[in-house]
């Protein structure tokens, strides 16, 4: 992280969203750092970034904060609305507060850390992103999740991992129910290693051995009329 002296402030009470995103999207240097202030729940803050820059968002945001991020590190010092870090390709997004629905939806890569709770459909259709939620997650999380890792230090709501593909789900607390084709799986050494690495990156105070792993039973991969009742 660059020193505070090099940080450029983008004040949303004085600048238009377009101007702020244009500034961030045009930044290219790895030493560049920005802070976005007076967010007032605005939508689409810091979307489409494509450089290893550091952005601190001071305040809570509306929908799609850090959407489609590549390379950038975006730290939200507040809570985020629906679809935070959706379709992220790479980089890191850290949310100090809570995340609303669809956090990390369809993400292809990078790391999303939610230090509070995440609402329903966290990690829906995720395609390679890693998501670590320090608190709980809501219902239908990891629905049709394809790749990547979802780590939950708290509890998971109903229908976790419904119609799951190859994503790995790690939950430390309780799981209210599993969705179609999602089953508990053996935690092997390679999974403990993945988990330990993610917990460290996310600054999470937990031990890998405290988690249980869930994944796809792969019964629904090819249509079989005898499994139609599982849907």
């Amino acid at each position, binding site marked *: 992280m660059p020193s505070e002296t090099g940080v450029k402030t983008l004040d949303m009470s004085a600048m238009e*969203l*377009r101007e702020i*995103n*244009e500034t961030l*999207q045009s930044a290219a240097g790895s030493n560049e750092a920005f802070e976005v202030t007076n967010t007032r729940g605005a*939508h*689409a803050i810091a*979307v*489409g970034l*494509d450089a290893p820059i550091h952005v601190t968002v001071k305040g809570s945001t*509306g*929908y*799609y904060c850090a*959407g*489609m991020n*590549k390379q950038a590190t975006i730290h939200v010092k507040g809570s985020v609305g*629906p*679809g935070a870090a*959706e*379709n992220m*390709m790479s980089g890191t997004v850290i949310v100090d507060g809570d995340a609303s*629905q*669809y956090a990390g*939806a*369809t993400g*292809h890569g990078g790391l999303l850390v939610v230090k509070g709770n995440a609402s329903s*459909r966290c990690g*829906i*259709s995720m*395609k*390679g992103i890693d998501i670590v939620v320090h608190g709980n997650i809501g219902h239908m999380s990891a*629905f*049709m999740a*394809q*790749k990547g890792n979802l780590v939950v230090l708290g509890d998971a709501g109903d229908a976790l991992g419904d*119609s799951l*593909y*190859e994503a790995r789900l790690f939950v430390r607390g309780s799981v209210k129910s599993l969705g179609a084709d999602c089953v508990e799986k053996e935690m092997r050494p390679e999974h403990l290693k993945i988990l330990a690495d993610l917990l460290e990156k996310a600054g999470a105070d937990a031990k890998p051995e405290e988690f249980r792993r869930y994944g796809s039973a792969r019964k629904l*991969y*090819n*249509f079989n*009329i005898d499994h139609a009742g599982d849907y």
Partner: protein
Amino acid sequence: MDKTPRTLPRQSWTFSNEVNSEIRRAAETGIYDIRGGGAKRRVPHFDDLLFLGASMSRYPLEGYREKCETGVTLGTRFAKKPIELKIPITIAGMSFGSLSGPAKEALGRGATMAGTSTTTGDGGMTEEERGHSEKLVYQYLPSRYGMNPDDLRRADAIEVVVGQGAKPGGGGMLLGQKITERVAGMRDLPQGIDQRSACRHPDWTGPDDLEIKILELREITKWEKPIYIKVGGARPYYDVALSVKAGADVIVLDGMQGGTAATQDVFIENVGQPTLACIRPAVQALQDLGMHRKVQLVVSGGIRTGADVAKALALGADAVSIGTAALIALGDNDPKWEAEYQALGSTTGAYDDWHEGRDPAGITTQDPELMARLDPVAAGRRLRNYLNVLTLECQTLARACGKSHVHNLEPEDLCALTIEAAAMAQVPLAGTNWIPGKGI
């Protein structure tokens, strides 16, 4: 021997041979029938409309001498870089995965030579189509397979797919036979599985959310790209009004004859409205909002001829889009493959098992040997020729109605052959001044 006269064996209309064959197929397999293409049932269509032509009250233009413009600009509402097309006919979204790489290349080549755009589909953008499409519309679908910001930025427009005419309210499926290593890689899925495409977007619900989603897409692409919203022909008045509200630059409206790569036959034939029935309510919604011609309307689903193009434009569309017809132009269902269609239990013109990946024409397949049958250069030329013919036909009809631009065609240029078509198109029944539902 009994000499009592017997009546001819009488087949049931209700239990026809076709119906009975489906009952037997269902009983044998225990699964519904899946196929490609659009609705095959007879529904009121553009064939049920006629142009009136010039007369004492209309002055025609001279064919081959007086100009009849065909250009159209899509995306004039908000986008900094609207799309300029030479003809009002675009190529509809069809996925790499459902189609082969050479087929996507051919579509790009043909569209580019004719001065129009082509469209990606589920599964992401391939180099074949980006490289050969001067103007490429990038579909933003519920599955988000292959979706990434780099491709968003190198697209010429973005089409948010809410629905399609073959299956309003339905998602997609691509069976394991077509999930090759390349297709699976682009979709982040295991090879060989039956791949489902979601029916709802994962991170927004309803038009209020969509408005914010569109804001995000515009911010990522610097407000340069036109944003289309594609809807199936379900409730065209409200779907169009809500699309305007959500911030669309362009609305693509796909009637039930619009094709699909693979969907349940029961869905294709029983959900959605005919294309003809969708256009006037859609145009009415735009007019009620003061947005007709400001938000462009692209109509698709069963467009085959220049007459279809001209009639859709006369009813208020700004452009049309073709999918099935484009595939036929490339070589799909060509009689030269009849023996192979027969071997697959089908026949020329009826082959629709595109999901099985065994297309003799090499278009709806990922089989390398079959794919090699399609020469993308020659197929691209065929598509260019076909698009040129559609345009010439449309111009011919427009000139006959005295129009110097195909967009000047209007409902007053039309009459209907059937009461149903008159009611749907809201033009008079031929020989009368009666428009059903409009009184005298």
